[in-house]
């Protein structure tokens, strides 16, 4: 029993960390949550991804959004245009995930993230 509570507390804390990243960088936090669930709590990859999607169902970024909106940092029109595509694409991606080899897929994604991140840091500080 206490083991379950310890695990629950650990998951809650890890998610809190993902939340800080979420508010800080305006992201969902899944990109950090998926590897953390796998590395710290030995979730299988598919299970970590499915569980991360549950965490993204309630508007976890709502409080952070209010803070950004107050400072005028929200483009409502762009956001509205993006939402339908992201929803429909999500269904396609969920079906694809069944068929693809997850390890290769993740390596490609990690490569893209690494390149994007290095580019962002470089263009911010050294250009």
């Amino acid at each position, binding site marked *: 029993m206490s083991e379950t509570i310890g695990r629950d507390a650990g998951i809650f804390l890890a*998610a809190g960390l993902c939340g800080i990243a979420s508010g800080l960088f305006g992201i969902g936090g899944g990109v950090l949550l998926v590897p953390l669930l796998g590395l710290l709590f030995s979730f299988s990859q598919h299970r970590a991804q499915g569980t991360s999607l549950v965490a993204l169902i309630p508007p976890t970024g709502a409080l952070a959004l209010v803070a950004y909106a107050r400072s005028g940092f929200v483009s409502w029109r762009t956001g509205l245009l993006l939402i339908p595509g992201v929803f429909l694409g999500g269904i396609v991606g969920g079906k694809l995930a069944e068929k693809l080899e997850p390890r290769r897929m993740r390596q490609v994604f990690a490569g893209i993230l690494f390149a994007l991140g290095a580019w962002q840091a470089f263009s911010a500080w050294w250009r």
Partner: protein
Amino acid sequence: MTFIILLLGLAVGVLVGLLGVGGGVVLVPAMVYLLGMDQHLSQGTSLFILLPPIGLGALGEYWRQGQVDLRAGILCAFGMLFGAYGGSLVALPIPSRHLQGLFGCFLVLSAILLLRKAELDERPTVARKKSADE
């Protein structure tokens, strides 16, 4: 421009379903570079997109395959709700240029974590566990 934004949403959505992430991690740089938006504006807009349950369609697919830990997911949602507010309070006073640089560092770190996870999956114990899950 409207067409580009619609297409961008679709492309990001496929990633959401494939990887179980919110999509913001790709959307923010895409808005900065493709749409020429400011870093803070991109981040705020990304949080707006995450407001409706855009991952619901993808979640349905995972649910049918029994790949969801509901209890852990709910715990994570609460942790992220409060964490996200704290994070936004830190981000807002930071100048856009530095925020963009920090975002880049975060992406690199996430990429390393993902790769590390990919390596662990090659171990036979994890492979066994996976087949037991199925």
